[in-house]
């Protein structure tokens, strides 16, 4: 227990946060710009260093996900079924296309130069951002999924799609016609989030029942033997365990360790290889809705925002905290010698 010391504060709080639930936030791959999507129908761009809101784009419906294109533009996935691209400098809006249902998640593949969106219309769509605004020219392909898409993650040419019904499909972006692998989640409950390891060997899957599964792409027995799941974001109170959904995961870009955020308001940092928890940050006011490490891994953006797990209730205001990361908190530790029992 002494290893996981808490810090007194949650980090710097950004001014002018969204006025409704934060659906996702992401650091740019090139700078300390932070893109935030929210249920208040906006896509916002913050300069974290300056702590200023640099741009704001209003949508017709709640924005459920966002990602950067390059440093000066980004994509948004909205509940109004549309996928859009925004140039931050000029404020120009490009219309990429629409799904038949709200678009839950969006990713941009630098390798393929494509935008991938997953929607509750049970499809995955790939878009070419260069064809924006001309109808159907942006759309590269539509791929049926067994269920509504809940989460997407990319590494290299690999794409992992997590849907309702605990399905997990692994695609190769170069051949989207068929999933490379069709799996069922190793967790018993609804998938909340999927994130690929930065080294491209596997992915982590989190569920609504305070658990995270660590899985590997390699189907060989030896590789599959390494997979495991662990419990987290739980609280024991009066003899009952309270289990919280694990909403967000973020891998550290350098050390490969990862942070999880749950509805208990805690952010934990884990070392997946050594199966250890590295750090637990002090409790945030409300559920952790999203997490993102900056490109150099020196900053961690934490969205403390109620994720509607208990329906429409009163909750703490939505806030974005950016904390400076100490190497100690995220660097894997060599296996300590077991303490001999006294």
């Amino acid at each position, binding site marked *: 227990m002494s290893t996981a010391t808490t810090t007194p504060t949650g980090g710097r709080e950004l001014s002018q946060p969204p006025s409704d639930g934060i659906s996702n936030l992401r650091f740019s791959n090139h700078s300390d710009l932070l893109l935030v999507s929210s249920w208040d129908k906006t896509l916002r761009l913050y300069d974290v260093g300056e702590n200023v809101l640099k741009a704001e784009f209003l949508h017709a419906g*709640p924005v459920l996900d966002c990602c950067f294109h390059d440093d000066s533009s980004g994509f948004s996935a909205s509940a109004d079924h549309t996928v859009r691209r925004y140039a931050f400098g000029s404020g120009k809006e490009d219309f990429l296309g629409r799904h038949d249902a709200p678009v839950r998640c969006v990713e941009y593949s630098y390798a393929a130069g494509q935008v991938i969106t997953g929607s509750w219309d049970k499809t995955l769509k790939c878009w070419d951002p260069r064809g924006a605004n001309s109808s159907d020219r942006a759309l590269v392909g539509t791929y049926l999924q067994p269920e509504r898409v809940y989460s997407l993650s990319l590494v290299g040419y690999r794409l992992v799609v997590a849907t309702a019904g605990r399905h997990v499909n692994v695609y190769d972006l170069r051949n989207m016609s068929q999933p490379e692998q069709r799996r069922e989640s190793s967790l018993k409950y609804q998938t909340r989030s999927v994130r690929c390891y930065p080294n491209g060997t596997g992915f982590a899957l989190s569920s609504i029942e305070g658990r995270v599964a660590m899985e590997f792409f390699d189907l060989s027995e030896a590789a599959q033997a390494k997979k495991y799941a662990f419990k987290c974001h739980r609280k024991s109170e009066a003899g009952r365990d309270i289990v919280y959904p694990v909403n967000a995961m973020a891998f550290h870009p350098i050390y490969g360790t990862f942070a999880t955020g749950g509805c*208990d308001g805690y952010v934990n940092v884990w070392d997946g290889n050594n199966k250890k928890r590295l750090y637990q940050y002090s409790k945030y006011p409300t559920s952790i809705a999203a997490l993102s490490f900056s490109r150099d891994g020196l900053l961690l953006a934490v969205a403390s925002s109620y994720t509607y797990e*208990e329906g429409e209730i009163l909750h703490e205001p939505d806030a974005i905290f950016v904390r400076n990361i100490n190497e100690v908190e995220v660097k894997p530790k060599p296996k300590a010698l077991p*303490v001999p029992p006294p």
Partner: protein
Amino acid sequence: MTLASPTHKKVGLLRNRAATGHDPLEATPSFCSAVAAACSCSCSSVCRHITTSPAGNNIQVGQLNMAHVSTDQLLQLETTCGSFLYELQIIWDEVGETDTERDKMLLELEQECLEVYRRKVDQANRYRAQLRQTIADSEAELAAICSAMGEPPVHTKQPTQRVGNLKEELNSITPQLEEMRKRKGERLKQFLEVMEQIRNISVEVMPSEYSPSRHVDESDLSIRKLEELYRQLESLQKEKNDRLKQIMDHLSTLNELCSVLGVAFKETVREIHPTLDDTEASKSISNVTIERLATAIGRLREIKIERMQKLQDLASTMLELWNLMDTPIEEQQLFQNVTCNIAASEEEITESNTLSVDFLSYVEEEVLRLEQLKVSKMKELVLKKKTELEELRRQGHLVVEEAENEPEVAISAIESGAIDASFVLNQIEGQIAEVKEEAFSRKDILERVEKWLAACEEEAWLEEYNRDENRYNAGRGAHLTLKRAEKARALINKIPGMVDTLVAKITQWEKERGIGFTYDGVRLLTMLGEYTIVRQEKEQERKRQRDQKKLQGQLIAEQEALYGSKPSPSKPQSAKKVPRTSTGGSNRRLSFGGAATLQTPKPDYMHSAKSTRTAKKLDDLGSRGLDIAGLPVKKLSYNDAITKHQEVGMPRKPFASLIPVNTIPSAPSMPVIASTLEENQAPNTMLLLTPKNPATAAAVPMHVASTPAPTCLVNDGKLSVVASVEETEYSFEERRLAFYVGGR
């Protein structure tokens, strides 16, 4: 025949007179007739003789007369008379008339002739008198006309210069009279014309006062009078022109006023006099009209001045508000035409509609809007100041009870207009100054209080730490905690001194001010007093414990003396976890709290592990590792059935002792094995993992045992369905969107 001689004499005399006095006997009929009469008288007796052959006799007579008188008519006439007398004599002779009868007859004849003469003379005399009268009349009329026309009589009758006879005189005077009459008629016409004009103008100027007769005084038709009338006319015309000009002036002024005031000019004018509106018809120029016009102008001017003052008031208010609120120029520009008139005099405001009712109300509306804006800004300001005040109070740990509702009260009061916002603002500012001052005076003490409180916190921590049996175990960060504990001890020793100084300071402060020093509403001295008491109690307790420990030590020593080896006193089970939960170090509590217990794995625990490998694994996991629970419980549910099922499952005997240790006696000990067994039904991918990690799950008994339901989901009927995968499941976002859409 004697008788015939007188008749002859008389006729002869007549004849003589005619022959001597009047040559042209034929031209004077009266004389002829007289002669004829005389003849006939003398002849009547003659005629009686010639009745049988009148014609032959006449020619005979004529031949006779021709023979007597050749050229002379009188002679002829006398002949006729003589012939008549002769004829009469013949007749008488024939008849045999007596002489007396004959004389009588002749006398009768004489008398009749006389009568005729007399009548003719009378007639002529009358004619002459009439003629004279006519002349006199004409002369008189002529004189009258001349005098009326103011002219000297052209020509008056001079008795000396009488010209000719009466008829000539009359003939000379008549044309003069006619001429004068014609001139008089002309003059009269002129008079009438002028007077008609005068009358017309006078009626226009003063219709009610002027009622002159159309009658012209014919006695004075002189040029002088005419000129006089002309002068009068001229003056009247001038007056009329003056009045017209005045009216036009008035009208233009009125028009100007109307346009400025936004009043319909035509209607206003029509009200005053209908003719004024008409451009073609001549305008009424009476005194009344002018007076009315002047009143209307005066009235409008009054209105104008009144409105102008109102507008200027509004403008100045507006300017003030602008200044106050830094209204942007664009917004100000809209009302530039209002504010530019702020210092204008009445005459300077000429732009149309500047003072119309609409415009005024428009400006008024704007001012009203600005006022409201100001009020709302004031409200904001008041709230801001309130917050500042509260913040200051909070910082100074000052609590004012009645401050609770103040902002609301103030706001509602401002809204209702009961209180002026600026007044409230001043009040709050005053309060802020007060609080600042007070905070300053309290600063020193507060700093000390903070220090004391920090020390107390450290004391609490240290206490808790001291109760931790494993505090000296080597672990990451242990040296830091040790250091902290060391520092804390040093600090705690200082507390009594701190408290004393504080008490002294506070007492002094209170004495100076005569009020109690409160800290967040509690009297600080009381707090300190309480603290001191508690501390003393703790001290006593500690002492008591020390004594007890000493006693125990003695007891053990005795036992040792009796039975040998001595049990480790280092693990009184009761000290395990209790302080952790009670001291409220919530931040430090980990979600996988089993770690603490497992730092010293017990032999029996090891026993339960299936293999050494897992035990080893468990070891590093257990110490501070991941809380690996092979796979999740098959059914994470909220109903009793599951809990029962879990209870029915294999009881975990080896851990039985742990449960009370963990002070969670009510926790149903979840059989890990059971859960792992169930995992066999899990998807293939997981099968490899399950047999290898059975014990890892057991590493966290607290968690596995009591995973009831995610409480956050308990209330949600829908999500309990989620447990059965077959039915439709929904993510939080989907439910949120449904609510979001439903809420719209």
